[in-house]
């Protein structure tokens, strides 16, 4: 992957060129009946020809709004209230409809976050693709379909002819996104707007889509405006990056410069928030940015980041009219204190304390869960899953969507019953006891934190109510005063002030809701916490805070935790042991050091390789791109489950026979036909790059 290095070297000559897209002092308002929301107060940036510009920021900071303003599509209430958007010298703000039509899809095209909903469900892929050349290039239907087929090949979709006849719902998420990309490229646009193009896709699919975008960009010389909240993706795909905060740019610099020497406290905070794949659990804690992004109506005076900034100085940071100041070559920052703050780069304290090998808290043996979907159709959600979690240990379950992680969680918590197998906890087999049949002490000892806090919190009850109810139900405290006292303690434990008890879920942010859900889960003093993607619905800055909190509490309470996640960097950061699953089966299990160390299963290798790091040297790793999509769990491959996508596949033996389990150590097992010695060989990307 040399995508980053190459365009930067040619940047020097391009710097003087007229920009392809120039946004100047853009102000975007949403004029509702009751109030006017200033989504973007004053934004300026440029995209040069051939360049890839990244726009990063937390949810609600105005990224999508900016993209839609460029497309001239702000909806009924949105207006550009000031400033200009120039594209190839032409003004787009208030441009006549026919001019916009000639630009949209032809000279500027867009790739959307959710490809399924971006495609018309009742029209074939072919019809939807062919529209673009017919509309803009004067092609006949037949010519247009030919061009569509050719483009589908370019986005590496197999069997283009058949694909043209299919409907969107017959494609997987990754395939749909490739179709949307093909659609965008068919008009040969000079600028491509990508609004979170891979959010919601599986990591290995995301990885393939990002590689594809990079490759197509080089082939067609398209400029990119890449919008994302994923710093790793931006770091690898962009030449220059702008950090957006509450509708303003707070820092802008070439990618290496920005991630290597971030100047703005917010940028630094964002970078510190994300776990680094090359650092394990005990290297450092994640640094969270306190607080939340202000609502457009509640922007403070002066520096918008002020209320969340540790470097805030009254009289200095709250003065109006803060500007972007140059701090280096093509590097600007909006912070009055940047020269002083530069030296004070945060050193993060390492996590302390290490426990000895603990006794088993919960043991899974051969857990199998089949769903019968009618005649001769069985969905194999889990098959012969075995592992154990020791007391106060964190075991991470890793894998992409559909691998059976959540089913396992449902069985543990009694929301579902295993078809066969045993789960032993305190000597008892709980695999086949549903929650309704579980005795109170058992219910109390297993608690769950869900991905979406909305599903746990009743919208019509206050946050305090949920916690109190949990306390009452398990009789943890008796009497109103004692219960209220305990509830306040729990709120304090999740760093929320007691006033939050009275709030309803709708009055809480995503991160706050998840904290309430955690407080509620710990209310019953559980010995096992099942956390199913507890932070994946949250913004990066909030994620870090919630994870840190969860880890702290887990440690002080000596609770065991099953941590379900698809984010390997996060897993490396939090887990003691890792179980990697694919299509219902365990591919590999071991301690974190073993999983992220030398020998790994090919699937784990691909997962690790899919992680994008903000560290520039991270880009030099060999990326493994998996082809194809995860097969349906209804008809699983006969031999190795991973055979249809494996990059190290040995041949027909992988298709025919289930792989043997290779014992790499007492704690490390890999299910693969590749012999143990060959698995040990330095295929691991980290190792490879260390050597070079």
């Amino acid at each position, binding site marked *: 992957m040399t995508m980053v290095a190459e365009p930067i070297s040619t940047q020097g000559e391009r710097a003087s060129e007229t920009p392809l897209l120039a946004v100047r002092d853009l102000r975007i308002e949403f004029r509702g009946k009751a109030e006017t929301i200033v989504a973007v107060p004053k934004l300026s940036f440029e995209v040069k020809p051939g360049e890839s510009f990244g726009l990063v920021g937390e949810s609600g900071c105005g990224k999508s709004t900016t993209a839609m303003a460029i497309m001239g599509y702000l909806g*009924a209430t949105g207006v550009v209230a000031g400033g200009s958007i120039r594209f190839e010298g032409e003004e787009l703000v208030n441009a006549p409809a026919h001019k916009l*039509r000639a630009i*949209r899809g032809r000279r500027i095209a867009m790739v*959307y976050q959710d490809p399924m909903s971006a495609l018309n469900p009742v029209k074939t892929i072919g019809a939807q693709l062919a529209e673009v050349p017919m509309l803009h290039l004067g092609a006949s239907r037949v010519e247009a379909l030919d061009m569509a087929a050719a483009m589908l090949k370019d986005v590496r979709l197999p069997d283009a002819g058949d694909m043209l006849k299919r409907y969107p719902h017959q494609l997987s998420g990754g395939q749909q996104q490739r179709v949307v990309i093909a*659609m965008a490229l068919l008009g040969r646009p000079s600028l491509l707007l990508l609004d979170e193009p891979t959010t919601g896709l599986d990591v290995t699919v995301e990885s393939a889509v990002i590689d594809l975008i990079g490759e197509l960009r080089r082939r067609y010389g398209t400029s990119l405006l890449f919008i994302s909240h994923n710093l790793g993706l931006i770091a690898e795909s962009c030449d220059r990056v702008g950090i957006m905060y509450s509708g303003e740019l707070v820092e802008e610099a070439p990618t290496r410069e920005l991630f290597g020497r971030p100047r703005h406290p917010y940028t630094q905070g964002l970078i510190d928030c994300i776990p680094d794949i090359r650092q394990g659990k005990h290297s450092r804690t994640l640094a969270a940015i306190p607080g939340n992004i202000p609502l457009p109506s509640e922007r403070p005076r002066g520096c918008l980041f002020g209320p969340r900034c540790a470097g805030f100085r009254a009289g200095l940071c709250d003065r109006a009219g803060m500007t972007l100041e140059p701090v280096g070559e093509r590097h600007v920052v909006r912070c009055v204190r940047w020269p002083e703050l530069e030296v004070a780069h945060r050193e993060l304290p390492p996590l302390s304390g290490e426990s000895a090998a603990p006794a088993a808290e919960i043991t899974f043996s051969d857990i199998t869960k089949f769903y019968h979907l009618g005649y001769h159709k069985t969905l194999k959600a889990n098959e012969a899953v075995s592992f154990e979690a020791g007391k106060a240990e964190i075991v991470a379950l890793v894998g992409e969507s559909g691998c059976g992680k959540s089913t396992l969680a449902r069985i543990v918590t009694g929301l579902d019953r295993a078809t066969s197998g045993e789960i032993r906890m305190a000597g008892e087999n709980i695999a086949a006891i549903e929650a309704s049949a579980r005795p109170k002490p058992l219910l109390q000892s297993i608690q769950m934190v869900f991905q979406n806090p909305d599903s746990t919190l009743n919208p019509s009850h206050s946050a305090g109510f949920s916690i109190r109810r949990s306390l009452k139900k398990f009789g943890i405290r008796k009497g109103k005063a004692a219960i209220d006292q305990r509830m306040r303690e729990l709120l304090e434990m999740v760093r929320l002030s007691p006033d939050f008890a009275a709030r309803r879920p709708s009055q809480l942010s995503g991160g706050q809701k998840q904290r309430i859900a955690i407080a509620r889960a710990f209310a019953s003093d559980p010995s096992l916490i099942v956390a199913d993607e507890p932070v994946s619905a949250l913004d990066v800055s909030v994620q870090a805070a919630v994870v840190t909190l969860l880890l702290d509490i887990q440690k002080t309470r000596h609770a065991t935790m099953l941590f379900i996640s698809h984010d390997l960097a996060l897993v490396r950061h939090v887990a003691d042991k890792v179980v990697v699953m694919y299509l219902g089966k365990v591919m590999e299990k071991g301690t974190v050091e073993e999983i992220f160390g030398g020998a790994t299963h090919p699937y784990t290798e691909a997962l690790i390789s899919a992680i994008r790091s903000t560290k520039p040297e991270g880009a030099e790793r060999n990326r493994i791109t998996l082809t194809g999509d995860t097969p349906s769990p209804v008809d699983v491959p006969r031999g190795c489950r991973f055979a249809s996508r494996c990059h190290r596949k040995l041949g027909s033996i992988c298709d025919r026979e289930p792989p043997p389990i290779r014992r790499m150590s007492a704690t490390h097992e890999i299910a693969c036909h590749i012999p143990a010695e060959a698995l040990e060989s330095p295929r691991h990307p980290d190792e490879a790059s260390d050597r070079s």
Partner: protein
Amino acid sequence: MAIFVAKRLAMMLLTMVAASFLVFAVCEFTPGSVARKSLGPFATQEQVDFLTKKLRADDPLLVRYGRWAGVLLGIIPDPLQDPSTGLNFKDPRGAQYFGNFGYSTLNKLPVNDVIWNRLGNTAILAGLAFLLIVPLSIVFGILSGLKEGGVLDRLLSVICITFTSIPEFASGVFLVTLFVILWPVLPGTSPLDTEGGWSVPSQLVLPVAVLVIYDFGYVARMIRVSMIGVMEKPFIRTAVLKGMSTRQVVIGHALRNAMIAPFTVLLLQINFLISGVVVTELVFAYPGFGRLLLDASLFGDIATIEAATLITVAIAVTTQFVGDLGYMLLDPRIRLR
């Protein structure tokens, strides 16, 4: 597909049996005996008693229902046609054949001679109205759903709501006043014969107009709601940002999606137009199916009521079947899994 059709047919049969039995049972409670109705008010009590015995009208309900079904299926001959009843009822098709709906005591004719004729008349009325309702409601619905709350939406919505809320008899009387009395260009009644000096097509104008005015607004509202939902979908944004004009977006992307949900509603209008247009038929003295059903009900002409019930059920099940097929055609997510 074959299974699907078979299921639908089975359901149709079941509904028919249930509905016909229900009608039979309800008719029990209407005053006056079958014999009395068949003979007319001037017959003597002896004649009535004789006929009652002859027809075995005192048998239990279930037995009589069975006999009626037997006649319909052509297993037994129609007892009313037995010469010994002295009623002189004669069906040119014979007394025993499949599809024998029996004898209409009201019209003193075989039901088959009356009902198909009436159904045909109503089908003409309903068909013409439907042909106008479909395009009108689609145009109104799509245009007003295009921009919710816009000037056009408000204007069209007012028209639709006003029209829908005027009862049929009111608009009927209003139109008659306008085009028959004040400006006599159209006939006030529609007996479908040319004795009054008006051509048949001219007799159809007012009844069709009343039906269209009453019904299209409702369907248009349904389409409007669906259209508003579709216009907010991200794929519409995709189409616009491809550079398509509003017209291209509406015709190429919105229309078909917007018609998926209202399609069933549209087909339900056929059922309504066939059996629910009594008021219009009464206002214009139109010899239609609805009026026949009304007259038969008032008279207690059980054979006609039963026949009408079965036909109505058949139409309802058929439209539903067509609806399902149309659904599949419109929405590939249902057709192809």
